Every structure is written in structure tokens, then in C-alpha cells.
């Protein structure tokens, strides 16, 4: 692949239509982007944003329509063709090979370094250095991908795309898994880059759209329903256009719980994958009918905490009292049967079985229950009826309940997990980043559901990085830092500033 010198002055998408079995993912979409413009592409989960971008990259073949670059029609058969025009994409699900290093991952696309009998890794290294210096994006070329946090992987993806010479960037929900700090950094960087690059930016967070983009296009059910200049519209306008109604995120203002403890963590010690103590003497109490928000920068033990409670990680010492019974080091089945609900962080690997149908994923945890089985046979009628109900209630966009869960859009996969966990009527719910990747309407709905569960007496541990989500929903906010609870405070006292200070590890916040 040559590093292109030809600039993209204009890119037009004309009447693109793409169908999947039973789904019209893109329906006659036309858009255009000029040089130096940032187009924000927004829309509900399953609206067809990712599909459209995959068509643009040559990964999918459109059933109808064409793409014009500088007025000339192009026909991309593989991403190589798109790269040749300097188009690069950071995918919604990261495209990095976990057991290879950052260097190798970038070398995979950097064809100048492919000498017949030798991979010229030094050349790749130099290229990474150059890009890192130019854009202030530091990455460790020798780290393995599996050692990196999500934020670091995101940076690797960006560096990779830039190393391959991209001057037209497509970013598919680049911020959905980043910490607030990382998000701010990325937006600032993209702003600086937008002078020399064109960018298509997909996001569900309208603040970012407002900050970054010059134009905005809204997709719904595969169609462009609105296009305009970003400055002419407020974010609530855009939200209303997107969802069809005004979005009001609910608040938790019911009186605090009085129903006694549900989950008590006592002096927990748990090791991380790399062997150090990820939870170090952690204690936390959560009552029935109470939401405790766990705030903290990711990587401070949140993941290990959720896994330890659910029997997925060994507890070295300490107790997990669930409704009075110690469930530390119980098997996941025992924890589930005790009444625990779990919305895991990794939706594709831990939350669903991608090749199973949507309805099978709904009943994964209840195949033995009386409701869905009798005498070792599944009651298919009951399963179908329930699944159809859940699909409608949670507004999961799919042609039917038989499609493979893995074929759904990112946000809709998340909805499948949420639907299962919430509808199982657990006694307690551990929700890890529950609204990651959800559109605003869906996030609003999930927040309402969580509050309703709380009012029904379910205790909830809400792990999130979005402080607004935490303060809106929680009765109490616990701040985690380096595997310990820094402080627990009532949500009314949890100001952004105070939480920020606590999350940074400053212990005695009163004195500042």
C-alpha cells in the first residue's frame, strides 16, 4: 500500500442500501463530507451507523448505491482499497490481535515493512514514533494487547490508523469505553487534527457531538432523517430528533432504604490477572432497595470486585455475605441460584453466547427452571412468548427472536443482557457500565428500570465511570481507589468536584 498523496476533497455517499437477512440496515442513505469537516453520525442502536461505515471501508458490499471521491465513483472491494485513498477506521469493537504486540498489530497493515523474508519491525517502530510525536499519542510498542486497558487499546487503534496513512478518519463510538479524562483528551486531540483531516464521528454522547462536529446527520431505521450544521441545534434538539421524544434522564429522589443489609463485603482480598492485589481489604455494605454507585477510574479493582462476587474469581480472604450467607468462592451457578443478577463489562464474551439465538440468550441462566422446562425438555412456546415480550419491552431492534445474538448491533446486544438480568427478578443486581454503547432513549429506559427495581426492594451495585449516571441513580456513592473504598457518601453530597478528588486518591477530602 502506498501512502497516498492525493487528498480527499469531497466524499459522497449516494443512495446506499444494505440488507441483511430480514433486516434493512441501510435504506437509501446519501451523505457528503468535505475537506476538513467533522461529520457526526448519530442515531439509535441498530440504526445502521456501523453498517454504513463498513460499506465505506469496503468491508461490506452495498446492495445498491455508490460512493464518489472527488467526484469520481470508486468501488472498494476490501479495506485495502479504502486505505489506498487514505480512509481509515477505528471500529466499534477493537480490531487488535490480543496475543501480539502493539508493534506487530501495526505491522500487520504496514505493508512497506513487509520485506520478502523479513518483517522490518524497526521501520514500523520509527513510523509509530513519528505519529506519536506528531499527535502527542504515546503508546508502548512492545506491550501485548491483552496487557492494555481499554483506553490504551483505543489509543493503539488510533495510532494504527494514523500509521497506515489515514487522512480521512472514521471513528465508530471511540469514546464509549473511555474514562471521562480519556474522553476529554481524545476530543481535544481530534479537534486539533480536524484541521488537516476529515472525520466521521459516531457517538451517543451529544456533548461530544456538539464539541467536535461541524455537521450532524441523524439515522433512524437505516434512513437519514435529519442533516444540518451542528451549531444551529442544541443537544436537546438533536436528542429529540433522534429519539422522537424529549429525553429526560430520571433521578433517584425516593427516601433512602430502611430494609436492612443485602450484600456485605468484608475485608475482601482478591488478586488481579497479573497477580497483584486488586482488592485490598475492601469492605462495603449495600441494603435492600438501595443503589450504591461505585465511582472510580477504571482499573482500580472494579472488574475484580464484580467477578469475585459472582464466583468468577478466587477470593483470597474475606467474606461476601449475601442475604446473610457467605458466598465467597461459591461457583457461579450457586451465586446465580442465590439470586444474584450480573451485567458484565464484556458483553460479547461474558454476557451472551454470540452464536446462540436471541431467545436462547434470554433463558441462558434459567434452562432448569420450572418456568422454561419440564422433565428436561424446554417449553418452547413459553420461551417464545417471553422472548417476544422482552424484545418489545426493551425495544431490541432485530427481525425476530431467532437471530444469532452476535449479529445484533452493539447497543442491542447490551439490551439483550439487560433484558435478561432485569427480568429474572434477582434479589440483587451488579450492573457494570450498564448503559455503555446505548443510545439516549435506551439509556433513559434502563435508568428507569433500575430505579423501579430499587423501589421493588432490589439492591443494586452500579459500577460506572459516568459520574452523572452515578449521582442520578445512587442513594450512596462509594469511591474506589487502588482496591480500597476511599469513602462512602450520600449522593446529595457527591459533587463532581468532590468525587474527582476522591477518585484521584486524595483521602481526606474535607480539608481541601
Amino acid at each position, binding site marked *: 500500500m502506498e501512502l497516498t498523496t492525493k487528498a480527499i476533497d469531497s466524499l459522497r455517499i449516494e443512495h446506499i442500501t444494505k440488507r441483511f437477512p430480514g433486516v434493512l440496515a441501510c435504506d437509501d442513505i446519501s451523505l457528503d463530507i468535505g475537506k476538513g469537516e467533522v461529520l457526526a453520525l448519530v442515531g439509535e442502536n441498530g440504526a445502521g451507523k456501523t453498517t454504513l461505515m463498513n460499506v465505506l471501508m469496503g468491508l461490506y458490499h452495498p446492495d445498491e448505491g455508490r460512493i464518489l471521491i472527488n467526484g469520481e465513483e470508486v468501488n472498494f472491494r*476490501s479495506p485495502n482499497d479504502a486505505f489506498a485513498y487514505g480512509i481509515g477506521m477505528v471500529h466499534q469493537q477493537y*480490531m487488535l490481535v490480543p496475543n*501480539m504486540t502493539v508493534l506487530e498489530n501495526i505491522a500487520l497493515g504496514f505493508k512497506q515493512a513487509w520485506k520478502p523474508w523479513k518483517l522490518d519491525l524497526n521501520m514500523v517502530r520509527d513510523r509509530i514514533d513519528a505519529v506519536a510525536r506528531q499527535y502527542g499519542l504515546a503508546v508502548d510498542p512492545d506491550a501485548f494487547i491483552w496487557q492494555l486497558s481499554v483506553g490504551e487499546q483505543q489509543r493503539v487503534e488510533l495510532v494504527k490508523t494514523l500509521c497506515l496513512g489515514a487522512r480521512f478518519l472514521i471513528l465508530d463510538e471511540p469514546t464509549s469505553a473511555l474514562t471521562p479524562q480519556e474522553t476529554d483528551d481524545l476530543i481535544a486531540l481530534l479537534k486539533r487534527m480536524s484541521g488537516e483531516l476529515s472525520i466521521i464521528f459516531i457517538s451517543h454522547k451529544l456533548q461530544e457531538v456538539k464539541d467536535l462536529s461541524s455537521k450532524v446527520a441523524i439515522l433512524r431505521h437505516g434512513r437519514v432523517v435529519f442533516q444540518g450544521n451542528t451549531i444551529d441545534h442544541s443537544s436537546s434538539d438533536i436528542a429529540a430528533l433522534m429519539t422522537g421524544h424529549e429525553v429526560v434522564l430520571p433521578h433517584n429522589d425516593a427516601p433512602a432504604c430502611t430494609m436492612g443489609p443485602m450484600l456485605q463485603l468484608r475485608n475482601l482480598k482478591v488478586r488481579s490477572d497479573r497477580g497483584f492485589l486488586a482488592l485490598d481489604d475492601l469492605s462495603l455494605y449495600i441494603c435492600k432497595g438501595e443503589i450504591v454507585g461505585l465511582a472510580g477510574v477504571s482499573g482500580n479493582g472494579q472488574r475484580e470486585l464484580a467477578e469475585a462476587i459472582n464466583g468468577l474469581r478466587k477470593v483470597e480472604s474475606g467474606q461476601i455475605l449475601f442475604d446473610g450467607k457467605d458466598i465467597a468462592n461459591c461457583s457461579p451457578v450457586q451465586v446465580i441460584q442465590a439470586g444474584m443478577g450480573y451485567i458484565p463489562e464484556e458483553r460479547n464474551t461474558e454476557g451472551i453466547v454470540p452464536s446462540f439465538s436471541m431467545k436462547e440468550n434470554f433463558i441462558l441462566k434459567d434452562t432448569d427452571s420450572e418456568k422454561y422446562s419440564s422433565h428436561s425438555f424446554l417449553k418452547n412456546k413459553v420461551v417464545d412468548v417471553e422472548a417476544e415480550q422482552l424484545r418489545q419491552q426493551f425495544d431490541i431492534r432485530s427481525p425476530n427472536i431467532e437471530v444469532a445474538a452476535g*449479529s445484533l448491533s452493539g447497543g442491542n446486544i447490551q439490551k439483550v443482557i439487560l433484558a435478561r438480568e432485569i427480568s429474572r427478578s434477582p434479589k440483587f443486581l451488579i450492573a457494570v457500565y450498564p448503559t455503555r454503547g446505548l443510545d439516549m432513549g435506551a439509556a433513559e429506559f434502563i435508568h428507569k428500570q433500575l430505579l423501579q427495581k430499587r423501589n421493588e426492594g432490589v439492591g443494586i451495585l452500579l459500577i460506572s465511570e459516568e459520574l452523572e449516571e452515578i449521582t442520578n441513580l445512587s442513594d450512596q456513592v462509594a469511591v474506589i481507589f487502588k482496591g480500597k473504598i476511599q469513602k462512602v457518601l450520600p449522593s446529595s453530597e457527591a459533587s463532581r468536584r468532590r468525587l474527582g478528588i476522591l477518585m484521584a486518591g486524595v483521602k481526606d477530602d474535607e480539608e481541601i
Partner: protein
Amino acid sequence: MTFIVNILSLGIPFSVALLIASLGEMFNQRSGIFNLGCEGMMAMGAFLGMLVPYTIGQGADVPGIYNYLGLLLASGVGALLGLFFGLVVVTFRAPQGIAGIGMQMFGVGTAGTLFRHFIGGTQSVPGINTAPIPGLSKIPILGTLFFNHNPMVYVAFLFVPIAWYILFKTPWGLRVRAVGTHPRAADSIGIQVNKVRFQALAVGGALAGLAGAYLSLCQVKMFSDEIIAGRGFIAVALVYFGHWHPVKIMAGALLFALAQALQLAIQGLGIDFPYEFLVMLPYALVIVVLAFSRKSQKTGPSALGKPFNREIRT
């Protein structure tokens, strides 16, 4: 002492067929294809390898050269069988385990049938003889152990660093590892997943064919229906055993072959002990070591056995 030297110098050549075949299987699996048909490809290689010197090679001026032509033919046909396997499992996305069993039966059956048609009964060939390395082979003990072997033995052990270099230091090796672990990522960066898989299958097939021909030309110096004797399956196991790494695979092949040499030697001692148990020993050893070896998910090709389809998201 001589007992141990005997076992070692017997075990090293025993390991060669396993080593070559499992290095080939390693490339297959690294690219994401599980080839259970290795046994069949080896059988074809074993037959074709000896066919050349047995037919056109007999009475020729330089009979030696036909042995090497046999090795070449065996690898070439092996590569073709690999590509054929690719057509079935890569292009048509057939389940790899089943297709592999089919390939095994096809290879073993065809080789046996052709053998009866062209050769008929048990016939030995002169084959390729030991080539002591001048000077080095005279060193006491070490000379017998390492420098007094068939030329293909040296070649096979040279394949280990070569395979390592190809896998970890060349662009092709990088592509093979990528398509076997995260084909979607490889595709998204412009690598033709199926093409790389076909290439890896051709390499794997060629090595399987060569391994078979080694048996018929260098080790046993004849062909019979049972000549492969499960070595193709052991090769598949050794790839897991060696965590898809050439050096560890070599260690596994040596361990198995030494166990085999040991059991033969013990049988030779004439101790009154049911020999069937001794014959079992190497196989049992592989199972035990596999069961207890550390399972690592971090190195292996995690897309092993899964066909790739760009438009099917899972």
C-alpha cells in the same frame, strides 16, 4: 551407558516423522485450521515417496536421485491435498473435525489401494541411507547420537529454527498468526484471511507428505497399510502439547519418540512382561502430559476451527 546411548540414537530418528508432520500441523492451526487429516496426507506421502524409486528408479544410473524425487513428489501432492482440504473447510466452510476424518480415511484408503494396484505386496526399497558427518561422527558417544543419521534427520531438525523464523519474523508468519487468532481484525486491516489459510494449508500438507515419505524411504524403507500407525494423530496432539511453538513441539516429538525407543529396548531385554503394555507407553505418556500441561489461552490461535465469514457477525 550403552543402553541409554542406544535408546537415544534410536529415538532421534524415530522423532523425525512426528516432528515434520507436527510442524506442518502447527502452521495449519496457527492459521486457524484444525487438520485432523494429517494421517491421511502422510499415508499418501509414504506411498508416493517410495513409488518413484521403486518404479522408474530401479536400475537407473543414479538411483539415489529418485529417492529425493520421491520426497519431492510426496510434498507436492501433500500440498495439493492441503489445498483440497482448504476448498472443503475454508471455501465451503465444512466442519473441520469431520472433514479431517474424511481426509484421513481418503488418504489412507487411496494410498493402500494404489499400493496394491502398482506394487502389490510387501517390497522394500533401498531408500536413503545414513550419512555420517565426516569428522564429527567419530566423536565418542556424541558422534553416534547426533552425527550419524539419515540426511533427512538433519534437515528435519533444521526445520525447527526455520519454522520459528518464518512464524515469528516474517510478514507471512505474522499474517498466519493474525488470521488464526482474530480473523476479523486481520480482515479489517486488509489481509485476505482465506488466502493466508490456503497458503498455510499448502505448507502443512507439504510437510505432512514429506513426513510420510520419510517413513517409507528413510525409516522403514517399505510401504504397508499400517506404516503411519497413528503418527498423524500424535502430530496433532503434539501441536497442542507444544503450545503451537516449534521448539516445544520438537521437545514433544523427542519425548514421544524416546518413549517408543525405550519400550522397544525393554522388549529387547526379554523381561517377562506383557509387551502390549509397553507398546501403550508412549501414547499414554502423551495423554498424561497433555492432561497436566499448563493450558495457556494467551498464545494459542483462538479462532481455531472457526470458518471466517465477513458478513456474519458473531
